């Protein structure tokens, strides 16, 4: 992709800007599709049909929603800290968007082929916390403050098990480059890390149970990181009204919304890269190529997004202390144990 663009535009600043803007072309349609998907899945779980009027089965409804949000009055509360209040949604979105830079959409395309890709994702997604705290604090609303404090505590806690899972994968691959992680898993479904990776059979059999545990840890932690049920504590509707974004309206609210959905894809994509072979085709060389790679990557990502939606509309919500309990006393020890065990298996 980069070569192709260089051929057209030449090597320069422009090419870097273009490469950086490409994920945006993905996020916007993706958000529309996911909003639609979420509403339809929720409706079918709940024995209803959701919107049916705007377009065929309501496919135009997300556009109408966005239009409505664009038209809305942009309110800044009189008592809010105006600067922080206005910066916060952008910071949240930037934190999420920056993660897209290293996602390996295809063997020939990643916004930036960083060698420290995994570390970068962990670091950049933590930036979101600052935005959320800012939003909650600057709103000058006690409920928002509660939401912000909760989300900060939650996201930071759940980054620790995620970091251990990522470390384990880094140990196996020997690189933090997401493309390298994916390449190691390419060559068929059996090479995915969830199925033990490309090792000899005896090693594989030992790795599979550990990998499944690690996958569960990563997936649970990722749900917490995107603030969705059963971990939607920061915006617990029945407790905190809307949490940190209570006071936001119009496009600034839409940015929070967009960031949430974008983040949902980032964490799903990370799961796909770490355990499900990233862009590699499940059939080895069959249906493999730059375009098919992108197809597999997005499809796998969307599967996990859908699972997330499914869980959201099925489960109740945990309480703050229970959430912390799960992170520190369940996920983190298990993740550490798995990491050590994988280390021994690799050396053996």
């Amino acid at each position, binding site marked *: 992709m980069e070569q192709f663009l260089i051929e057209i535009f030449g090597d320069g600043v422009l090419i870097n800007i273009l490469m950086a803007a490409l994920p945006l072309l993905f996020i916007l349609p993706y958000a529309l599709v996911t909003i639609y998907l979420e509403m339809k899945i*929720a409706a079918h779980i709940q024995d209803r049909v959701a919107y049916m009027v705007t377009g065929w089965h309501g496919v135009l409804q997300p556009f109408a929603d966005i239009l409505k949000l664009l038209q809305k009055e942009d309110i800044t509360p009189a008592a809010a800290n105006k600067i922080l209040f206005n910066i916060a949604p952008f910071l949240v979105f930037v934190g999420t968007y920056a993660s897209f830079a290293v996602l390996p959409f295809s063997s020939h395309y990643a916004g930036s082929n960083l060698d420290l890709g995994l570390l970068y994702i962990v670091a950049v997604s933590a930036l979101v916390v600052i935005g959320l705290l800012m939003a909650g604090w600057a709103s000058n609303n006690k409920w928002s403050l509660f939401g912000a404090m909760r989300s900060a505590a939650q996201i930071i806690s759940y980054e620790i098990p995620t970091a251990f899972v990522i470390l384990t994968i880094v140990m196996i691959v020997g690189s933090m480059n997401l493309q390298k992680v994916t390449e190691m898993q390419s060559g068929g479904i059996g090479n995915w890390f969830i199925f033990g990776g490309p090792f000899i059979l005896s090693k594989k059999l030992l790795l599979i149970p550990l990998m499944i545990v690690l996958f569960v840890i990563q997936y649970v932690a990722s749900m917490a990181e995107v603030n969705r049920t059963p971990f*939607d*504590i920061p915006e617990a509707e*029945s407790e905190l009204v809307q949490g940190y974004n209570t006071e936001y309206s119009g496009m600034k609210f839409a940015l929070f919304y967009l960031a949430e959905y974008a983040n949902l894809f980032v964490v799903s994509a990370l799961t796909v890269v770490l355990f499900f072979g990233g862009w590699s085709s499940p059939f080895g060389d069959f249906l493999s190529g730059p375009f098919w790679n992108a197809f597999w990557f997005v499809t796998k990502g969307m599967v996990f997004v859908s699972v997330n939606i499914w869980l959201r509309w099925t489960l*109740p*919500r945990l*309480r703050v202390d*229970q959430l912390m309990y799960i992170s520190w006393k369940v996920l983190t020890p298990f993740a550490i144990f798995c990491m050590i065990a994988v280390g021994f298996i690799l050396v053996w």
Partner: protein
Amino acid sequence: MEIKSPISSTGKKLRTEEMIINMGPQHPSTHGVLRLELIVDGEIVNEVIPHLGYLHRCFEKHCEHMTNYQQVIPYVDRMDYVAAMNNELAYAIAVEKLLAIQIPERVDYIRVIMAELQRIASHLIAVGTYGIDIGAFTPFLYCFRDREKILDLFEMTCGARLLYNYIWVGGLSHDLPTNFIPKTQSFIKEFRKTLKEVTDLLVYNEIFVKRTANIGVLPKDVAINYGCSGPMLRASGVDWDLRRDDPYSVYHKFDWKVIVGKGEVGTIGDCWDRNMVRVLEMEESLKIIEQAIVSIPEGNVQSAIPKRIRPNPGESYGRAESPRGELGFYVISDGTASPYRIKARSPAFVNLSVINEISRGSMIADLVAIMGSIDIVLGEVDR
């Protein structure tokens, strides 16, 4: 719980203080326009002060200006608007006591069927919205789907879906429509299945149990001291149900049992128990309806309605078990056609008074769980 004050990096003690925060009147989980003034220490609730009156409509004063006892019934509907039939029943009992009239047995049977259907509808709302309070949105819609079917039955009978004006003093506004009985029977059959669905999805859900077991425990003695009634009292282990202990209408003719909280997953009288009592009570109501519907005697439902209601000077207290507890009407007559005074003892109001007692020291999320488990209807709290 003693909380150590945090120390800053310079070694100076940082000051923390309690925060006053208003929950309501526009808060999603206060189930209406209740305002709770919370004194919180971080997430921990130290004190809950309920502020009432946002929905006060001078029900009792209005009644004194009615020119007829029957005219009060539409007002009574609007007290506990999710269980209007039960309100009408309690009021009708009070006035009939005052008039000392005998009503046909058919009327009593139909009243019991309606009251029990209404109880199921009301408990469905309680259980469904409790799911929302805990964060599960889906069971709520399942509950409402089933409740719609009950409302359809009511609509078939008297034309209204929420506020019926159906149970009159001395009789009913309409007799049962011709296909009411088969439709109710098919509803009961379907509902047994869907009730199990809701129970499996919500009540025994691991997260739901974690959120509600051992939370907001209401001990037996506190419940009695505060005058709690209904599922709230029964969940605390007190075996008390007006339908059995002070039988009115024809409840004594049916075979059913009073559900008492057992502390199946936690302590007796916790939020889970209160919710479970409601779920199990729906099954008992189904039993009553099933028995009543096959044994309705023939008769004229309007034959006993007095042409002019002009009770002798005197007073009476009529009570009935509404979905929320003991609903009583104290009626005083001065011999004229309009009531001299009507006082309602609303169970939701009494049950709400216990909230500070059982939520002290819990977290904000627990307070929401406790609020939902009390199952208040603000129309009845404020009247």
